[in-house]
């Protein structure tokens, strides 16, 4: 989850600016960048601050009355249990699949690398819709756990596979040479090498489950997000919705804090120079059949069920006339909303990404963490607080696409910051210094060196934010201008009334579009590289 940067040449120790006291300069290098970053994080935290203010207005008695009920306790337990079950299952499937495709001679492993990552393209509400329309009366805790696991294990698979792919095989060889067998080397060395990646992936899954709205709603599993939405949508029970949101935020902070603690204890795993060698692959022998069967089974459940279900519904035909124009209109709205969201997000992410890459320090880290806090908030909570914000503070924005864009910016800022920071690493300060020493002024250096090297990465980040915005459901449901529908909201509306055939075209189009960034992620992870360079 942290952006790593590579640098050429000596570390920058804060460019001297005459007139700025030395102490201040050390504390806050790059004042302009810092100011812009602070502003960006402030914008991203608007919903959170607003949530706190509005909840406090309700008064302590009212809050206590809403809070100390057996229902809240039950919701909390069920949400946490769901997060725990799904996270454990995702770690098991994700690490197992990653190990099989990177470290064994499994036949067709590059195909399986793609198949294992592809469920990322299936929004949970589409998967839930596919299962509900395939299996009658599927609802409750365990079906929700199944669907969420199948949709979110790639969050563990991708980082762990990348870590296994990049891990230094020399460490394993040393372990073998010191007399540890294959299995003990795996548990004592390999698993420890990939622990940071596993922990980061598990955190993403847990946060994702806590904030998921689509699957738990369609599968009628009572969790916080569903309860918040019902409280707000049915009863306009604002205080109840606000208090429930605050509890959800508290759970999220708890998770983030726990992850930070484990991270502090974990060491950084550096590679000590030298060229990368492909790791030795384990010969599976007869064990490759059960391994293949397991991977095929996961792919069939995660991809096959939605694909078959969507295909059947599509083949049944779109029943109403004029449906095609509606689908296209919804697709158009999805595109413009996501475009506005991506533009605003990148605008806010640029200074923060550059700050974390070029002037790392406690301040940059703190700002980065705060941005993650907003990212971890469920879309329902973001949507709800922005509605109140729009009504009372920024009325001109209310019911416009810009309030929705603000929600997207809040939700996806860390994705964009990571992309910008990674891209900035592609143009290390050393390169810019060389360019300046060859007599080129700052603007020429920006135009001829920095931009050509960073634009691809920044563009990929923008594409990721854009397409994640297309998939987003709860905030879009709450904040879209009245009467305007997107692919996601049309799908949700149709499923809610059981019109599965009408929902299918929206679902198919969404999955097709979402497959693009997923492919991008797999390709960038290096898993598809030709491995035989000997």
């Amino acid at each position: 989850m942290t952006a790593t940067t590579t640098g050429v040449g000596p570390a920058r120790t804060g460019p001297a600016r005459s007139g700025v006291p030395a102490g201040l300069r050390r504390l806050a290098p790059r004042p302009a960048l810092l100011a812009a970053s602070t502003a960006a994080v402030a914008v991203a935290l608007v919903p959170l601050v607003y949530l706190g203010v509005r909840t406090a207005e309700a008064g302590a008695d009212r809050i206590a009355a809403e809070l100390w009920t057996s229902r809240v306790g039950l919701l909390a337990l069920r949400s946490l249990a769901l997060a725990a079950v799904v996270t454990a299952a995702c770690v098991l499937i994700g690490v197992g699949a990653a190990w099989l495709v990177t470290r064994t001679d499994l036949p067709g492993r590059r195909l399986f690398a793609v198949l294992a990552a592809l469920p990322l393209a299936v929004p949970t509400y589409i998967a839930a819709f596919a299962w509900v329309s395939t299996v009658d009366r599927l609802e409750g805790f365990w079906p929700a756990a199944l669907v969420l696991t199948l949709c979110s294990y790639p969050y563990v698979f991708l980082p762990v596979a990348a870590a296994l792919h990049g891990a230094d095989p020399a460490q394993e060889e040393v372990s073998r040479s010191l007399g540890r067998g294959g299995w003990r080397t795996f548990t004592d060395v390999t698993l420890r090498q990939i622990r940071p990646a596993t922990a980061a992936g598990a955190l993403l899954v847990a946060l994702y489950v806590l904030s998921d709205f689509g699957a738990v709603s369609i599968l009628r599993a009572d969790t916080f997000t569903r309860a918040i939405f019902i409280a707000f949508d049915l009863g306009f029970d604002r205080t109840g919705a606000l208090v429930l949101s605050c509890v959800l935020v508290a759970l999220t902070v708890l998770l983030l804090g726990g992850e930070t603690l484990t991270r502090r204890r974990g060491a950084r795993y550096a590679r000590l120079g030298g060229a990368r060698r492909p790791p030795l692959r384990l010969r599976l022998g007869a064990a490759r059949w059960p391994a293949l069967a397991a991977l095929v089974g996961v792919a069939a459940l995660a991809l096959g069920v939605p694909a078959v279900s969507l295909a059947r519904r599509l083949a049944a035909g779109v029943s109403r006339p004029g449906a095609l124009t509606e689908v296209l209109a919804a697709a158009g709205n999805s595109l413009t909303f996501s475009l506005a969201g991506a533009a605003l997000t990148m605008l806010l992410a640029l200074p923060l990404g550059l700050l974390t890459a070029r002037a790392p320090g406690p301040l940059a880290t703190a700002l980065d963490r705060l941005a993650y806090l907003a990212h971890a908030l469920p879309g329902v909570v973001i949507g709800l607080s922005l509605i109140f914000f729009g009504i009372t503070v920024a009325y001109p924005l209310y019911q416009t696409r810009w309030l929705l864009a603000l929600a997207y910016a809040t939700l996806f800022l860390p994705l964009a910051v990571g992309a910008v920071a990674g891209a900035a690493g592609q143009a290390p300060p050393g390169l810019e210094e060389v360019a300046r020493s060859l007599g080129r002024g700052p603007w020429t250096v920006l135009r001829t060196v920095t931009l050509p090297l960073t634009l691809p990465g920044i563009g990929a980040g923008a594409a990721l934010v854009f397409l994640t915005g297309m998939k987003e459901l709860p905030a879009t449901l709450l904040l879209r201008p009245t009467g305007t529908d997107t692919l996601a909201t049309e799908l949700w509306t149709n499923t809610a009334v059981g019109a599965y055939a009408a929902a299918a075209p929206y679902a198919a189009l969404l999955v097709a579009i979402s497959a693009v960034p997923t492919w991008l992620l797999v390709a960038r992870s290096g898993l598809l590289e030709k491995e035989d360079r000997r």
Partner: protein
Amino acid sequence: MSEVGLTGVVKRYGAVTALAGVDLTVPAGALTAVLGPSGCGKTTLLRCLAGFERLDAGEIRVDGRTVAGGGRHVPAHRRRIAVVPQEGALFPHLSVAANVGYGLDRSARRGERVDEVLALVGLAGYGDRMPHQLSGGQQQRVAVARALAPRPSLVLLDEPFSALDAGLRAGLRHDIRAALRADGATGVLVTHDQGEALSVADRVVVLRTGRVVQAGTPSEVYREPADPWVAGFVGEAVLLPAVAEAGRAATPLGLLPIAGGVPDGPVTVLVRPEQVRVVPGGSSGAVAATVLRHDFHGHDALVALRLADGTRVTARVWDPGEPVPVGVEVAVAVAGAARAWPAQPSGAPVPAVMIG
């Protein structure tokens, strides 16, 4: 060709003083090596010269024109001082020719200068390659060609050979030395490798904790080091406590003549291992020693010896033939004069050498 001068250059990072008043002259058309252990401030010095850092005090002049100091700070791109960083730092999105032509203006880029400097570094015909298609050594050559192309006042080389393996390094540094000389460029090479500094530079400046401790030709720095620390840093050194009297010092290796003057009294004497010779027993002035260790280096060997009073010394033996058996007693004598400095007040140790 340009002469570069530094006076009283000070650079601090918070509480850390990286440069504590550096005075230095870089003669035009020559290659000057700035030699020092890790953390001595040599990279900071280079960054100040290039204009990447502002001075806290002092002045830098290029051909008499002040580029830094006294409230002036000419930005890096107006200094005409080109750098060759440690890892080369080629622009990964540009071809070799475009990298080399980066510092040239539009008309010059189409001229012959690009091919000319590529030929100088031995890479004629490589213009269309991309940086990732080159080996590490080739990338460094391109980085040097890129720095030379705009005919800068000064070329700064920041440990440009440290990432390469030993065999490649020796060849490359002499090729690059030749390229700089052929182009008439003035160069400053920053390095912690004393062999590199002594073998390629016209002048060597030894830097320690942000100060210049000695500047001179390579042979001056090796033969007449300014103090025992420099003696040990630029080469193998046998340092012996002794008492000087009338230009001679009584040492465990015998009574040695001292080159240069030193006041009578307790001194520290420097003998280079190549001055310590194994001689037939009974030679005049020879002392007995026991062989402790024999390190074979191919062209020569270093023999560790213990003298009768327990002092340990090292002798460099040329064309060793058969190794001297460990434990054998031999006779050793010192050829030539030794250097000596008044001994430090008791308890003050010679500064430790950090190699990094």
